[in-house]
């Protein structure tokens, strides 16, 4: 029951190579994610996002911070085209989502790994099967599934829980299965909605190191978090939302503005 892969070493220093040199909201076709004055109104009076614009380059590591209810999860649902924006344009991986045909949505989602705030595990499948599902949907063959799944589960420290159903896992364990599922197929874009919300500090650090390594291998990472310490230590790009508005977009930001 020990989790040998995750140790409490210091967060590695900022790598200059992944810096974002662009200004805000310049439309870039090759950008990983671009929001162009995106507004999302759920119902009259509930404006989750209002006029949000930003560009995330390929390979960036971006924190999204903001108070409860400020629209962070909404942003993610828009990127996955789970929702459509009320107005504005969203480009993910060079594709304009408003022009994406219904039949192409699965394709999009396979290229965007996502750790959901509420995990969204399939209740009738074991941890391993949940992770495998993300590979199966893109037609991966049985052999490579059998190889990759245990590998990825051991990265999040769950080798010993491979065959447990979500109901038989603790909150933090479920969260880690969700993380494993999100990056098992090495998507070019990885989105994490508070991936360490249910994890103790040690395990959190382990997960952050993992995300860091994944980012280094070229994956763009967008991470929603409430972990002030982490954000302040890592000094990466920070998008700060406040009541649906983009309040800050800093290249090497902290959890709160200066």
């Amino acid at each position, binding site marked *: 029951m020990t989790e040998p892969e995750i140790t409490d070493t210091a967060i590695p220093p900022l790598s200059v190579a992944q810096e974002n040199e662009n200004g805000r909201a310049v439309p870039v076709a090759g950008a990983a994610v671009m929001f162009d004055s995106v507004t999302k109104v759920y119902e009259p009076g509930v404006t989750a996002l209002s006029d949000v614009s930003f560009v995330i380059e390929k390979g960036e590591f971006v924190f999204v911070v903001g108070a409860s209810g400020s629209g962070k999860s909404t942003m993610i649902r828009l990127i996955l085209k789970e929702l459509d924006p009320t107005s504005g344009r969203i480009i993910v991986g060079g594709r304009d989502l408003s022009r994406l045909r219904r039949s192409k*949505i*699965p*394709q999009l*989602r396979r290229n965007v790994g996502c750790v959901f705030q509420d995990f*969204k595990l399939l209740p009738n*499948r074991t941890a391993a099967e949940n992770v495998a*599902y993300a590979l*199966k*949907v*893109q037609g991966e063959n049985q052999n490579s599934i059998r190889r990759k799944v245990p590998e990825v589960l051991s990265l999040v420290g769950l080798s010993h829980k491979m065959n447990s159903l979500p109901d038989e896992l603790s909150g933090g364990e479920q969260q880690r299965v969700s993380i494993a599922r999100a990056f098992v197929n090495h998507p070019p874009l990885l989105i994490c909605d508070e991936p360490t919300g249910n994890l103790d500090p040690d395990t959190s650090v382990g997960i952050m190191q993992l995300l860091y390594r994944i980012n280094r291998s070229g994956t763009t990472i967008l991470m929603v978090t409430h972990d002030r310490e982490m954000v302040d230590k890592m000094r990466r790009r920070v998008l700060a939302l406040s009541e649906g508005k983009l309040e800050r977009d800093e290249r090497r930001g902290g959890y709160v503005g200066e």
Partner: protein
Amino acid sequence: MTQLQLLLAESLRSLRASLSTTFAATMTVLIAMFLLGVSIALGSWVVSWSNNVKKDVQVKAFFCTENTCAEAVSDQQVGAVQRWLEADPRIKEGGVTFVSKAEALEIMRERSPELVKDLTYNPLPDAFEIQPKRAEDVEAIAADLRRQTFAGVEKVDYGRATARRIIRVGQVISIIFFGVVVLLLAASGLLIANTIRLSIYARRREIEVMKLVGASNWFVRGPFMLEGLFTGFAGALLAVILLLLGKEIALPAILGRVDADSDVQALAFAWTALILLGLGLLLGAAGSGLTLRRFLRV
């Protein structure tokens, strides 16, 4: 090939995972198909019985006797009528029977001995009893026969009132049977679709998650439809087995082999079974497929 294996594996696990709902759906199919099977059997038996009753509807051609015409009918005259009758396509093959006046008296003696025993001679004529293929044709045949005005034929007759009545009853029975089967068919379809809808509804979150993880509509739909197929097939198969048991064991026990009367027959069991199995498969797959559409729009 690998895709197929994947699909099968996915379906199997989906079945196992939702045993409770699968069981419920299978039960529903079973019940619906069983009722349908019973109604087909019962209905086709009743229709066959009513057809059998219709056999009693016949045309009678009475020939001349010394008393009724100038002279009694000759063999040639009888032969002419017979040839004409046998050429008529509306008449059943072998459906023309010659009843001589002696035979008629014999029949009469059995029915009302009082009447016959005091007769000094046989007042009854020779006659043809003519059975049409379809009871509905008696009227037309009788009319045609009359129009021919064959020499030696004294009278053409058919039990007008009885014929009309029997035909009418037959029609009503057929309509009712048809109505009941259509009703049960619609009801089965609705019930099965309903159950499948509920069982999919119970798993809508799961479907949502699948879609969010990048599963295509067909990847989600496949296992559910296969599950539907399986459910439909299993339910129908169980129904067929139950029906078979009912037919072979329960029925004789209750009714004690009522009718060896081999003319009255239900639709062949094999056909009923085939119909039920086909319907089960169809309803199962279609039910899942259609229901899913609602939840796939994520």
